[in-house]
Structure formats: structure tokens, C-alpha cells
């Protein structure tokens, strides 16, 4: 007979974004207890993390364990002592022959432990080991840590409570309903659990909550926002969407501002009209069943009106001082305090301008791009920095390339985000990010492990993406300066980008980068060539040959510097290889490879590189060296991992 198991960790409201990871963690920790089971199901609301498993044995199978006693030659007293300790008569002992000699021993039957006991012992640690990015203590200094206080625990195996205590909470069979629509204490059994919760306005399944939200707002055309939907699914136990509206006069404000207020500050979905334009409506998701009196809708409408009024007030106030007149104010805005006297945003834009040289639009945009940090609107809605500057620049008559560059210059803000739309924006964004990288690395603010407070990985990734995807003709090394740690850091990001984002194989990336990575758009072109070459018949054998060449050169510590003497080349494979190499020099590798490969193979087949005659040996090494130099311009093929 097997049993079902239920664990519900009842807590105060857990931050929504931590929940999915915590559940996966809980699964892993449960698996680690080693208790056999047929299936595991995980669920959560903001106030509970739930693990249900099916098919647990009532007890572990019995086992046998051989206990070794004294040697056969030991005094009778010792043997009797051993038997007594094991609780058996001496006659029950047997003699066991081991490599060390003969010993008394006893085959002990160990009864399998009850799953309930194993669980009772393991669960406190399972719960406390769930990983959360930031934890707290609540029972007093030195007490257990969790994401938020644990207030109740349900732990049932079949019909039995798995008894344990954690942070002063005893496990039991009592769950808790919705904070206001349900009862505070609800007796449950495993089969009844989900239904009982439902009766008390808790929808346990995230999938079901998601469906309820989506279905109930199907009548309104919302701007799709999967991340917001996920947040709402995990901050509610009984989600119900409602639609509210706002005065059309606010539509005069930039859409970016309106959407940010709704999305980031209020967690509302924006609504579109039939033409895809922003409509004066929003959808909020409540954590109750209905808004019978319209209180919630009106309340949210009032909050939104106040927020929009604020935004409009800021928008109008900010217009009184042009961006260009705010440049001097940037002296009082800190970019990086570690830079001391060079730490203001004014200093930063001066450095950006110096990097940008004489591109008039880019320089103008760079000078203005940080000025929005002094505006009221950005102080209120920091996530709109850049965007607001761009919008103000447009209103203030800056040319299109300039205002768009300001608008875009924080892009790309994530892997999914687009790079700036035009060249001017790309250059300003590059200058900004490169300056941030150089500044931080210059004062030793280097990311370690998961710690990257200045988001330098993102900055470096942005630089790489803009250079590659924008096909910008700038050598990355000259942008980075000569800090070896920064170069290594960015090299890592280049590797990551081509491998993990673009999906090139790691050895192809190594091979192509070994031939240089200063020009990233060229690197991309070479990688594509390597990728296309790879499935061709001659590629891998040639790669293997190049690896051999590299090894030979390394073993000989050969680094060129010898003049190849054709007269010293032996007739046959060696001379043929030389001729072929000369004929193919400068030609695309794609055409060369099939002609080169048989010559190389034959050379290695017939010619001994380590010739006894030193001159011949040097000449041969030089031949191989020239070959590897000439045909490694696209990629260092010796880096390719071959099957042979």
C-alpha cells in the first residue's frame, strides 16, 4: 500500500518573482530525502508553497546488516559481551571468515523506517533550505531564516499528520483560506485539500489563476504583457480583473509615460483601441471575487488620475527649462562617487564626447542625453530615463537623429531588447556603456560571481550587440583601452554572446576568436563561414591536421622567422604541398579546403618533419608555420574539436 503526501508551508506574502524558483528548489530538496514516490506536484500562492506527492511507501523495506564482533580467538568474556550488547544469545553468533582472519559476527535485521518518521525528521531542514535571494528572521536573533514568517504548516502522509515543529509552528492538518473571504482555520484531508481551499477563495493552481485572469479580461483588447501577467498570478490567491477608465485628456501625454505609470507603478494592463492605439482604459487585477459596489474600480481610477496629474505637472514644469540649459546642473549629479572629482554626470558626458570625436549629431546627443536626470519626471519615473530626455529633445526642436539617439541610448537593456534604431543612437549608447565599463574597471569595481551592482555585464553585452548587430565599424579593443581585466571581461561577453545567444558551437567560437576579435562584425562573418564549412567532408580532417601542425610547432618552440628555401623542399608531397599552398594563398578558405586537405594528409603520411638535417627540419617547420598562418585567418582550425 502506498500513501499520498501533502506539505503546505503557510507564510506571509512571498514576493511573486521568487516563487517559481522556490518551488523548483523545494522539489529538489524533497527528492534528496530519498523517499520513493511516483509523482510530485508543486503549487503556490503568495501565502503558501505546496508540495504533493503520490505513492510513498508506508515504510522503507527491511534490510540486513552484518555486525562484526571480536576475533574467534578472543576470550569468551568478550564474545559474551558482544552478544549481550546485540541482545542475542551467544549461540546465535556465526563465524565470518575475512581477509584479516575469523571473527564472530551477527546478521542484524533492520526494520525499515516509517516514511512518516523520516519525513518528520527531514522536513524542517527541507523547508529551511529552500533558497531565497533575501531572507529574514522573525522569532528573534539567531532564529530560523525564511523569506517571510512561516505561520502554519500542513504535513500529511495519508491520513496521518507528519509531526514536527519549526519556528514555533507545529505541523498539522489546518490550512488557512483567503485573508478576508475565507476562514482562518480550515481542517483538510489530502483528497479534499484543493477543493476546500477553493471553497475559501484560494485557487491553488497558478495555471488556473492565469486562465481566470485571461478569460475574464477577454472582452478588452489589452497590450500583451506576459511578465505582468505572471506577477499578478503570484500576488493573488483569487484574481479577478476589472476594467477602469481615465480621462481622454491624459492621452496628450506621451504614451511611454502613461504606460509606465500603469505598468510599473500600478500593475495595470494597458488597453488598445481597434487601431492599436492606447485607449483611455486599463485592467487591474484584484485579489477578491467581485467589485459589486464599484469601490475598487473607482479607487484605482482615482489613484491613476492622481498619478497622471503628477506626471502632467512634471511634464509641464520640466518644459520650463530646456535640456540644453541643464547641462551645467549635471555637475551636481553623481555618476560614480569612486571617481572623486571626475565622478559627476557632467564629467561622464565630457568623456563620452571625447570618445565620439567629430560626429556632430552624436556629440550633441551625448551632451544632452543625461540632462533628463535633473527633470522632475525622471526623478519620479526613473525607469523612463533616456526616453523622457528623447521626448523633451523632440519637443524642444532637436533634429530627429539627436532626439532618437537620446531616447534610445540606454538600449539594449536586456537580451530581448532591441539595440538603438539608428547609427547616432548606437554610437551614443556605445560611448555611454564603454565609459561606464572603463570607469568602473578603472577604480576596481569589477563584477564577481553573482555580484554586479553596476550592471557591467549588461553594459558589456550591450556593447557587443551594438557592434555586431548594428554592424558598427569600430575596433572594440581601441574602445576598451588597455585594462587587461576589462579586455578579458569583454572577451568573455563576446564568447557568451556568440555561443549562448547566437548558438554557435563553443569550439567554433574559440577557433574564430583565436584568429582575432577586434572587429566584431568581421568575427560574426567568419563564424558564419566556419559554421557552413563544418559539415563539409574535408573540414574535420583538415582541422585535425591543423591541430597536429600546431602541436608540432609548439613542441619545436617554433615561431617563424626563418626564410623558406624552396630548394630544400623534397620533391613529392612536400613540394606539392608548398605549391598548393602558394596557389591557394589569399583565396577564400571555402575553395581551398578540398584542395589543401589531400596534400596535407599526404605530407604527414610521407614526410618526416623532424628530419635529421637541421636546415631541412627548420625549412619544414617554416612550411607548416606559413601554412597555419595563411589558412588561419578565418579561424584557428586547430581549436575545432574533432571526432577523429
Amino acid at each position: 500500500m502506498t500513501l499520498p503526501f501533502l506539505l503546505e508551508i503557510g507564510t506571509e506574502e512571498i514576493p511573486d518573482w521568487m516563487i517559481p524558483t522556490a518551488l523548483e528548489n523545494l522539489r529538489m530538496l524533497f527528492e534528496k530525502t530519498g523517499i520513493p514516490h511516483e509523482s510530485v506536484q508543486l503549487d503556490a500562492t503568495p501565502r503558501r508553497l505546496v508540495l504533493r506527492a503520490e505513492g510513498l511507501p508506508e515504510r522503507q523495506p527491511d534490510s540486513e546488516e552484518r555486525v562484526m564482533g571480536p576475533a574467534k580467538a578472543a576470550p569468551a568474556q568478550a564474545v559474551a559481551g558482544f552478544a549481550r550488547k546485540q541482545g542475542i544469545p551467544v549461540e546465535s553468533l556465526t563465524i565470518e571468515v575475512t581477509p584479516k582472519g575469523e571473527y564472530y559476527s551477527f546478521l542484524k535485521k533492520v526494520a525499515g523506517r516509517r516514511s512518516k518518521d523520516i519525513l518528520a525528521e527531514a522536513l524542517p531542514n527541507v523547508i529551511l533550505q529552500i533558497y531565497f535571494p533575501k531572507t529574514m528572521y522573525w522569532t528573534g536573533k539567531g532564529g530560523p531564516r525564511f523569506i517571510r514568517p512561516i505561520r502554519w504548516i500542513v504535513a500529511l502522509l495519508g491520513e496521518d499528520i507528519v509531526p514536527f515543529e519549526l519556528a514555533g509552528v507545529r505541523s498539522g492538518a489546518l490550512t488557512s483560506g483567503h485573508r478576508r473571504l475565507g476562514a482562518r482555520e480550515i481542517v483538510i484531508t489530502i483528497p479534499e485539500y484543493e477543493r476546500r481551499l477553493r471553497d475559501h477563495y484560494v485557487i491553488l493552481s497558478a495555471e488556473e489563476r492565469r486562465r481566470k485572469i485571461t478569460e475574464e479580461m477577454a472582452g478588452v483588447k489589452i497590450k500583451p504583457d506576459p511578465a505582468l501577467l505572471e506577477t499578478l498570478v503570484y500576488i493573488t490567491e483569487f484574481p479577478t480583473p476589472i476594467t477602469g477608465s481615465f480621462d481622454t485628456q491624459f492621452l496628450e501625454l506621451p504614451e511611454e509615460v502613461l504606460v509606465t505609470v500603469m505598468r510599473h507603478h500600478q500593475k495595470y494592463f494597458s488597453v488598445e483601441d481597434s487601431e492599436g492605439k492606447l485607449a483611455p482604459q486599463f485592467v487591474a487585477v484584484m485579489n477578491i471575487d467581485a467589485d459589486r459596489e464599484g469601490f475598487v474600480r473607482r479607487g484605482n481610477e482615482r489613484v491613476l488620475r492622481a498619478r497622471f496629474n503628477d506626471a502632467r505637472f512634471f511634464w509641464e514644469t520640466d518644459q520650463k527649462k530646456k535640456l540644453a540649459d541643464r547641462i551645467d546642473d549635471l555637475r551636481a549629479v553623481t555618476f560614480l562617487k569612486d571617481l572623486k572629482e571626475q565622478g559627476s554626470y557632467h564629467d561622464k558626458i565630457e568623456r563620452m564626447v571625447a570618445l565620439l570625436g567629430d560626429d556632430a549629431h552624436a556629440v550633441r546627443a551625448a551632451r544632452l542625453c543625461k540632462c533628463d536626470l535633473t527633470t522632475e519626471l525622471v526623478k519620479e519615473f526613473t525607469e523612463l530615463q533616456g526616453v523622457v530626455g528623447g521626448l523633451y529633445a523632440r519637443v524642444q526642436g532637436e533634429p530627429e537623429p539627436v532626439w532618437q539617439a537620446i531616447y534610445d541610448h540606454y538600449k539594449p537593456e536586456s537580451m530581448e531588447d532591441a539595440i538603438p534604431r539608428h547609427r547616432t543612437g548606437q554610437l551614443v549608447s556605445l560611448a555611454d556603456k564603454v565609459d561606464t565599463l572603463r570607469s568602473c574597471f578603472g577604480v576596481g569595481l569589477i563584477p564577481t560571481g553573482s555580484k554586479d551592482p553596476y550592471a557591467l555585464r549588461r553594459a558589456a553585452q550591450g556593447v557587443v550587440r551594438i557592434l555586431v548587430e548594428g554592424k558598427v565599424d569600430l575596433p572594440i579593443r581601441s574602445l576598451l583601452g588597455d585594462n587587461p581585466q576589462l579586455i578579458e571581461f569583454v572577451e568573455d561577453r563576446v564568447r557568451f554572446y556568440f555561443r549562448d545567444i547566437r548558438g554557435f558551437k563553443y569550439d567554433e567560437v574559440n577557433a574564430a576568436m583565436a584568429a582575432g576579435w577586434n572587429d566584431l562584425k568581421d568575427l560574426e562573418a567568419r563564424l558564419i563561414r566556419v559554421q557552413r564549412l563544418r559539415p563539409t567532408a574535408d573540414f574535420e580532417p583538415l582541422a585535425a591536421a591543423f591541430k597536429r601542425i600546431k602541436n608540432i610547432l609548439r613542441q619545436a618552440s617554433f615561431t617563424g622567422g626563418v626564410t623558406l628555401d624552396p630548394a630544400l623542399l623534397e620533391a613529392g608531397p612536400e613540394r606539392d604541398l608548398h605549391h598548393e599552398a602558394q596557389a591557394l594563398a589569399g583565396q577564400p578558405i571555402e575553395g581551398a579546403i578540398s584542395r589543401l586537405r589531400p596534400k596535407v594528409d599526404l605530407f604527414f603520411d610521407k614526410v618526416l618533419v623532424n628530419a635529421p638535417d637541421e636546415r631541412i627540419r627548420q625549412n619544414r617547420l617554416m612550411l607548416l608555420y606559413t601554412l597555419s598562418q595563411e589558412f588561419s585567418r578565418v579561424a584557428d582550425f586547430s581549436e575545432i574539436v574533432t571526432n577523429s
Partner: protein
Amino acid sequence: MPSFQEIIFKLKKYWADRGCIIQEPYDIEVGAGTMVSETFLRVLGPKPYSVAYVQPSRRPADGRYGDNPNRLYKHSQLQVILKPSPDDVIEQYLGSLEAIGIDLRAHDIKLEEDNWEAPTLGAWGIGWQVMLDGLEISQFTYFQQCGGIDLDLVPAELTYGLERLTAFLQVKDSVYDIEWAPGYSYGDVRYQDELQYSVYNFEMAEIATLWKLFELHEAEASRLLKAYNPKSSEKKRFPLLPTYDQVLKCSNLFNTLDSRGAISVTERQAVIQRVRKLAVGVANAWVDQQSEQSS
């Protein structure tokens, strides 16, 4: 529709009924109820303590000359400290909202992650902002550290934004329109404060004088802190509370200087550190002083 003052009465009564000492506002200007010694110092050490008070909180930079319907130089916080926090603390908090007439079965209440931190106090905690129909009405924090010290008992701090809460209950779009007492609007009572302090903070405060005051208060606090001797048999009567007053003065002067635009990039962090050093110094001395007393 309860008036502003009735809401205050009801909340004070509610918390008094649950064992809180009701204090009157502290008489030195502060930026938040947390800074008052009733919170800042009382949360330290092993003694339980529960207290509630309405604290006028001054944020010079938030002044808007009385023009902005939602933004105030000086707003009123109801500060509740429950040390240690009871197991049903959230229930108790929700009950307080019901006590002022909010039916939580017909309104949408959510606890959204919001951890609190006050660098000048060396204090931080874990918690939420409480959203009522989309409006942030409270901050709920489990204190973890104060003055850089791990707390023995974890207090819950509940901070109510009283103007917002009242505007919500009275369905008013402007804080100046809420009814303070029958026949008197918030504007009648507070408009002059908002206007005049905005003029002072943004236009007329004499920067050199404020700096001088800052330095005087700082020097006095430092002098006293240096004089505190943990080994002295007289330490129990040492004036740490007056020392802390000097720190509060520094903090408010810093905020005023900041709103006046008088603090440069490089200075800013440094001045915050100066205030923090004093606050942390007082907190440590206080723990030492009070622990001796209980033994």
C-alpha cells in the same frame, strides 16, 4: 465619513486596546516616525515594547508650496511599533483598517514586496507596501537591524500615511480638501505651513547659517558620545537621549541643505556618513547603557 482627526482617534484607540503605549509626537523635527527615539532606540535590546504615535514628518524636498494635491513638505505618519511582532500581526493590521470603516471584503488589499532601508540610521528591514485599491496606504516592515546592530526581538513597524488614508476614505482628490475636523479642511489647517516652509527651504534658508548649525549640532553630539564611558559607574545617568536629539537636528539640517541645492556630489555621501556615524554611535551606547540597567 470620518474626519482626519477621527481616523487618528480610532487608530490610536485600536492600538491602545492591543497593548500599545500611546505617545504624542516627538518635539524635534524628523523626516520619518522611525527616527524618533521611541522607535530608533526602543527597538534595540531585549525588552518588549509596543508604542503608537502620530509623527509629523518633514521632507523639505517634497514641499510644493501647497500647489500639489498629493505632495507635502510635512505629512502625518501613524507609527506603530510592536516589539516583538505578534504572530497575527498582519491580521491585527487589517483589523485596524476595518476599525476605520474599510470593508476588506469589498476592497482590494495587497501586500507587495518592499524592503525598507535608512542608510543614515544604519537600519533596514523586510516587508511590504500595503496597497488598497491601488493606493499605497502603509509600509509594513520587520526590522532586522538598527544602528548597524542585529535586533534581539524582531519588531514590526507599521506606518500609515494618514493624509492618503483619509483622502481615500473621504473620496477626495486633493489632500487639501479632506476634512480635518467638522468645518475645517486640511488646507485650512496646513496650507500656510506648506507654503511658508517651501519658500524657506527652497528660497530663503541661509546656507552658511544652516551649515554652521549643522556643525554645531554635530560637534555637540560628538562631544557627548566621546564622553560616554561604558566602564563608568555613572553611565546610567548619561544623557544619551539628548545626544540623539543633536543627531536628529543634524539630519533635518542635512535635508534642508539638500533641498536648498547646497550639497555637492562629493559632499553628499560624506555628509550622510557623518550623520550615520553619530546615529550608530548613539545606538551602540544605548544598547550598552540599557543592558547594564536590566542586569
